[in-house]
Structures are given as C-alpha cells and as structure tokens.
C-alpha cells in the first residue's frame, strides 16, 4: 500500500508524516496522533461522536480521509481546554462550553461529548447570541443515548450566555 506525505497543524502543533490514502481521519487522529478523545460511534456519519474541526468548521472525522487535512488545521477535543499534558485538570481550565456542560450535567457516559463540544464551540464562536431552539437544532446531528439531550441544550445555552457576556476563552496548549 502506498503512503502519501501530509503535513497539518493539529491542535496548534505541526504534524508531518506519511499516511495511507485510505486511512480515515478518525483512525489517523486516534492511532497515528494518539488523540483518542475523538470517538468513533458509527463510521457512517450519523452519530456525530467523531466530530472535529477542520479550519474551525465542524466535520465528521469518519467521513474524511487523513490525506484531506494536508495543509489544513485540525482541532480536536484535546485542543479546547487550557490543560497541561501530564497535569491534573481543574474545572477553571475548561473552555466555557466544557465547563457549562459540567455544571448542567450535560454528559453521562461522555462518549458522544467530544463531538458535541466541537459542534457547540464552533456554533457559539460564530455567534453566542443563540436561543434554546437554535441550540437544540444545532446539536441535532449528534446522537446521545444517555442524557435525553435536555441538559446538553441547557449547558450550551449557559455557555452561550457567558460567551455573550464577554467571558474570555483561554486557548488550549495543544495536547498531547
């Protein structure tokens, strides 16, 4: 199997190497880069668990090939919070959307959560002035079997209020 050289910026860090053309972006991130926070739930683009951001826009990593990120920027859930690799995480370090989901009990098993965070962050970055109905619509491309969605919507709404009120976002330090 031939390999193709690619280079990309992943959570702020340059990555260069060779990948097989058929390697899915989700598998690449998880096994080649070691970013296992991106979860795989269906591999046909429906559940949304594998959502990452490509140049700031949410995409389903299971529907893309790794070669497609060549000369692009990828952000995964590991890139959201101002955490330091190897150190314990404090709630203060979390991105406002992460913190709001924590406060609103917007996650249970947490498997679908990284994808929801990547969608919600982009959605609120575009504009934090969002109604609950808009938020409900925005996360409707993510399947969650635990929460019944109610507290996810509440959490994102809480984050929206804070971001609209001007709460700053500390950039992630690019784990790992």
């Amino acid at each position, binding site marked *: 199997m031939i390999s193709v050289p690619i280079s990309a910026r992943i959570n702020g860090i340059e990555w260069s190497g060779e990948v*097989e053309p058929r*390697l899915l972006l989700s*598998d690449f991130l*998880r*096994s080649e880069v070691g*970013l*296992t*926070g*991106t*979860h*795989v*739930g*269906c*591999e*046909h683009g*429906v*559940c949304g*668990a594998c959502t990452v951001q490509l140049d700031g826009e949410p995409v389903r990593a299971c529907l893309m090939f790794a070669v497609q990120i060549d000369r692009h920027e990828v952000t*995964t*859930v*590991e890139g*959201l*919070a101002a*955490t330091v690799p190897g150190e314990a*995480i*404090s*709630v203060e370090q*979390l991105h406002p959307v*992460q913190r709001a*989901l*924590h*406060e609103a*009990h917007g*996650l*249970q*098993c*947490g*498997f*679908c*959560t*990284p994808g929801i*965070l990547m969608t919600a962050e982009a959605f609120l970055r575009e504009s934090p002035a969002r109604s609950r109905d808009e938020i*409900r*619509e925005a*996360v*409707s*491309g*993510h*399947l*969650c*079997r*635990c*929460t*019944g*969605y*109610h*507290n*996810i*919507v509440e959490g994102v709404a809480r984050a929206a209020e804070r971001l609209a009120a001007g709460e700053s976002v500390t950039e992630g330090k690019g*784990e790992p």
Partner: protein
Amino acid sequence: MSRAGGTWVGARVPRNEDARLLTGRAQFVEDVEPPGALHVAFVRSDLPAGRLRRLDVDSARAHPGVHAAFTAADLGPLLRPGAVLVPPPPLEGLVFHARTALPLVRDRIRHQGEALAMIVAESRYVAEDAAQLVEADIEPLDPVVDLGHALDDDAPRIHDDLPSNLAAHVRQTKGDYAAARARADLVLERRFSYDRGIGGAIENRAVVAEWDARADRLQVWDTTQAPIPVRNVVAAALGLSESQVRFVAPFVGGGFGPKIMFYAEEILIPWASIQLGRPVKWVEDRYENFFATTQERGQLHEAEIAVTREGRILGVRDIFIHDSGAYDPYGLTIPINTQCTLLGPYRVPNYESEFRVAFTNKPIVTPVRGAGRQHGVFVMERLLDLAARGLGLDPVEIRRRNVIGSDEFPYNHEIMYQDFAPLRYDSGSYEASLEEAVRLVGHETFARERERVQADGRVVGVGVVNYVEGTGIGPYEGARITVEPGGTVRLATGVGTQGQGHFTSFAQIVADAIGVKPSDVRVVTGDTSDFHWGTGTFASRGAVVAGNAIHAAALSVREKILKHAAEALEVDPDDLELADGGARVRGAPDLSVDLGALALAANPLRGAVEPGTEPGLEATSYFGPPYGTTANGTHALVVAVDPETAMVEILRYIVVHDCGTVINPTIVEGQIHGGVAAGIGNAFYEELVFDEFGGTSNASFMDYLLPTSTDVPPIETTHLETPSTLNPLGTKGVGEGGAIPVAAAFAQAVEDALADIAPGLEILDIPCSPGRLFELLRKLREASTQAGETA
C-alpha cells in the same frame, strides 16, 4: 458546596468524573493500544439460518500482514457452548431448554451475524481486507422470522435436538381468574405486540487482551457491565486461576443492558493473545453491533381484563410469546419481568399469566433498559384505558380506584419475581405520584376545558399512566474503603460504570460517613484487581446494592477512625466529630488530627500491635437485600397530533417518580431524562425491520432511528422520596424507570387527542411510528366510509 449538617447525600454535587470526559482524557477500551497490538476483524454470516458446508480461510491466512485466521476447527477445548448466565427461577411446572452459542460457528448458523472466522492482522484495515478473502459455502435453511408462527408444528426447527422451537414455558397464577371473570361486569380482550429494538449505546463493544507470558498474567480491557463474572468465566475457560486474570472496564460509553451479557469475543480475544503472544484488540463496528450485540423486545400478548362497573379490577389474564432469538443465555429474566411488572401499582386479586419463549433466527435477546417491564406496563395500562372507555370513566379515575394504598405495604403479589423471591413491594407512593402528576399536567382542567383543535389544525391529547420498577435485586455487592496516608480516601467496588455518575454518588455516601468532601474520594469501579467480588451493574441496582455496601464499609471505617483518633487525642470516641478531613473534639476544634496522620499511624512499620489488630483505616463490607426494592412513578404527557400526517409532537412531558432516598437529584434527573428519551424512541421511532429471509433491513443509524435533540422534549421531573425498607440508605433504583411507561403514556395521549376524529382508534402495537399511526387512521377512515355507504 457544603450543606448544613455536612450532608452530602441528597445534594446536587457536580460530577467528579466530568473533567476527564470533557477533555478527551478519559480512557475507553477503544483507546487502549498496547505496543505491538494486533487487530481483529470477524467474518460473520449474512444469512440468518444455514448450514456451513465449507469455510476456506487459506487466502486470508496468506494475505500480507495477517497473523492468524481462526475457525471453529482451531479452537480445541474452547469450542463448547457458552454459559447460561442466569438460570431460571425454581418455578412449579417450569419448562426451560438452555441453548447457547459456540464461540465460532461449527456447522449450524442460527442468526445473522454469527461469527464464522476470526482474522488477526497488523491493523484493522488489513484484517478487514483479509476477511473479504474468506470463502464460506453456506446452505441456506428456511428461517424462522415471524414470532407468531415460531411455535407452529411445521415451523423449521432451530435446534435440531429439540422437538420444537419452544425454549421455555412458565405459568404463574394467583386467585381464581375464571371465577373472577364470571362475575365481572365488563371483560375486554385484546392482542398486543411490542417489537424489537437495540440498546444503542453510542460506544460499540470492544475487547483488548494482553497476555504477559513472563508474568504469567492476562490483562483484559472490556466494555462490560459485569467485569467480575466475565473475568471468572474467561479464567475458567482458559484454564487460568482467577488471580492471573485482570479485567478492567474503564469508562464505558453507555451500557443499557447489552453489555451485561457474556460474549464469545470476551474469550476469543484473550485466547488469541495467548496463542500469538501479542496483545490483541477488537473493536466492534456499528454494523456488527446490530447483530453481534444482543437486543430486546419482541413479544405478542393476548390479554384480558375483568372489571366491575365501578372500574375495579377483578382479574387479568395474559398469555404471551416472548422472542428469545437464536439462543437463550440470559434465562427468563425478561419474560418474568413482563409477567410480574404487568401487575403494576394495582390491586389485582386474580391473575393468570402464562408465557412461552420461542427460539427464532434473530439476534439473541437479553435485557435492554426496562428489560421486559415496559411490555407488561403497556399491556396493563392499555387494558385499563380500554376498560375506562368501555365504562365511560376517565382514565385517571379508573387508576385511582385500583392503586395500592400507602397503608397496604408491604404488598405481596404472591407470584415469583426474577430474583427468585416472591413479588413483594416494600414501600411506595402510588396514590401520591398519580395525584401529583395529574395536578402538574392539569388533567382535570384539561379534560373539562381543553381546546382539542389548535389553530394549526392539530389536535391535542393527554396521557397519564403509572408504573412500578422492581429494582436493586440481589444477590450482593461489596466495597472496600481505604484512607490513605496522604488523606485521600479510596473506594473500590466491583460494579462497572457506564455513565451513571458512580464516581460522584458513591463518593457522596462516603463523604457523609467520614467527614470529607466527595471530591476527596477516589472511586474505582470495574477493575478486578481492585475488587474481585460482585456481580455487576444491571437491574437498576448500583445505588441500592453497591450503594449500601459502600455505606456499610464507610461506617466501619468511621469506627476505626474514631478509635484511632480517640487514642491519639486521649479523649472518648463519643466526644469526637469527623469533619473537614479529620477528627476533632466537639466544642474544642483545635484538638484535632487529620485522616492522613491517622492512616499513617494505623499502619506502623516497626514495633508491635495488639493481637487481632487490622492494619490501616480500611474496611470491606458487603450488602445483599432480602429481595428487590420497588420504585414507582407516574408519567403524564400532552401531545399534539396532526390528523392528516399522523405526526405527533410532545408538548409537555411530566415525570413524578419515587426512587426512595435520592443521593444526587441532578444525576437522578439525568437518568430519568435518558430513560424517557429511550422510551420515546421505543414507542415511536425504533424498530428493527426483518425481511422475509430473516435479514435486518435497517442495520445502520441512517435507517434505524434513534431520537435526536429535536425529538425529545424538556422533561419536567418531580422527586417523591419514600425510603425503601430493605436497606439502610433507603435507596431504590432509577436507571430504567424513565423508559418503562413511555409507550403506554404515548398511546393513551394519542388516542385522547384523536378521540373526536377517530373514536375507535386503539393503539395496541409498539412502536407506533408515524407511518403505523397513519395506517391505523387510514383504515379507520375507510371503515367508517364503508359503514356510511352501507347505511
């Protein structure tokens, strides 16, 4: 967040586990990749029924990067039927034929997705390439697809050594139904069906095994709800001591029942690691999950209710068939739950219940959230609705007249439950939950004044139904609590965790007992090296059985802390209080010692101790209830239905529930929300469609519809707290309650909405998808048009 009196149980404590999950640091099984790991893909049967005539894996074996291609012929002594996990209860006249699957198919294929071969390769991609090269020559057999005909004399036999596809037959009765029926003012008989669905955890199953030949030890990471029983089965199958095998169920991405099952992959992956001397990893994909992971539901009921003209229940008769799929490793848990839960919160003096379990050529059925209870609730609640309609009573009123009163506990239903104990209700709030739900939904006002037709042409209806949930069954769980010299408190328990918040709610129980904060308690669940006694997370039992074991262990540690602190401070233990991570003298807070110092002193490295002294501030306790504790509740909902399109929108969803002592209201509400969402899917969207050849037509998330955020309304939850009398904390389970009565509530509300437009509408089949409802309405319309023409 500290509460007056230092009480953490009952507080809305934010979860300890969230930060790791939110940052992508939490370890799931799929994240485990030991160096040098090989990857597995299974070759599975596309046919649901057949005879495997020839299986050629030579090309696959020869494929570059492939390390092994195993078939049944390679398994040696492992090639024997799997364990029967749950034996049937000792019921009089019981018929039960246990039939379990081989790890890989030898000759007979009994359901789609049965594994034929196991390919082990450098990567999953290569393993899947090689899987394509396997040639299987399968002689198709006539499949048994239709449950209604599975037990016919001329149905193809699924297990040749049995005279029919009958897997089990159970009859339980109380009183004399025939006599009750004879004196009834109204007898109604209906057929009900409740179709199949999946558990639908977003994380598929996964197993990673690493055999360390030098250490002579096997480590396995597994997405299981029951790491200890699985470890024990695997150790026995591989001829290892249980102490050589460590199973870890780390963060698990949703359980919902199917992950309580024991699966062949849980033996095959560790076995392959031993065979090949390499770590071996298998992650199920979503397509496999639709066949290789167990499913639930699939029952046909013929039920009858006998009532007086005042609406009092004289008796119920229910004859049903339960679809077990191709095998029955989980015994009779589901149909017995159905049989028992049908009685609900009601006085039913005479009951005749009989079920037959049928083998079919469909994937195996084991509990999924609700585990058969919703079928029973659906049948009973529907019978009550029909009886109310027949008698001209309000659906709420007929329930009021039949619920068990708060002075009637403990209430004995006289039949046997799934835990082999008589079906007894320890406590409950059946009248109160019904009245509170009625008040919240404004049912009486609604019934009097409602504007059925909205401006947009839709009609509005309301549904109010009750349920009970037998929870917290035995046999037992255990817990060990250790105060470490650094002051950290360690709690280990054997149950697995799949998002229920155990890292927080269990910590709250400990925090109250020994005066620390929940965030100071480090909880370990599902690691057999930390705790190796226990059965698992199922039947809504974590907070009840493990919770009370933790409570008992915490009280023992408390005694040890007080004893050591009293010696250190030279005071009487009765003069001490535990708070802020230490022991202090009441009224003289300066006289104190912290827990870490006491832990250090309790584990001397030199010198002598009194005979019989146990080291450390540590205690292990076990809890086993005499029988399961019964939770209850009432669901009320308001729906708007478009009579033209049959689309249903839920306008309000109200849950009044009683799970005894609430440890963490936020977590309990989360359980309710998720349960109701699963119930909505179950009632309205989710249906596995089997074609005439027994193949699943909708094995993807594109075609099998799980509810999304726009399908689940906000859920208004009210907690009633009637403590269980069967455990010191007073807790009852809540994991499944949300899912149980949804279909019944939904059916009542939709019928109510359409009462004027389609007065004869009866929803007797679940799921009642928009398509099915549309068909029901169309048929009613045709019938009434024909009747009009005839007249």
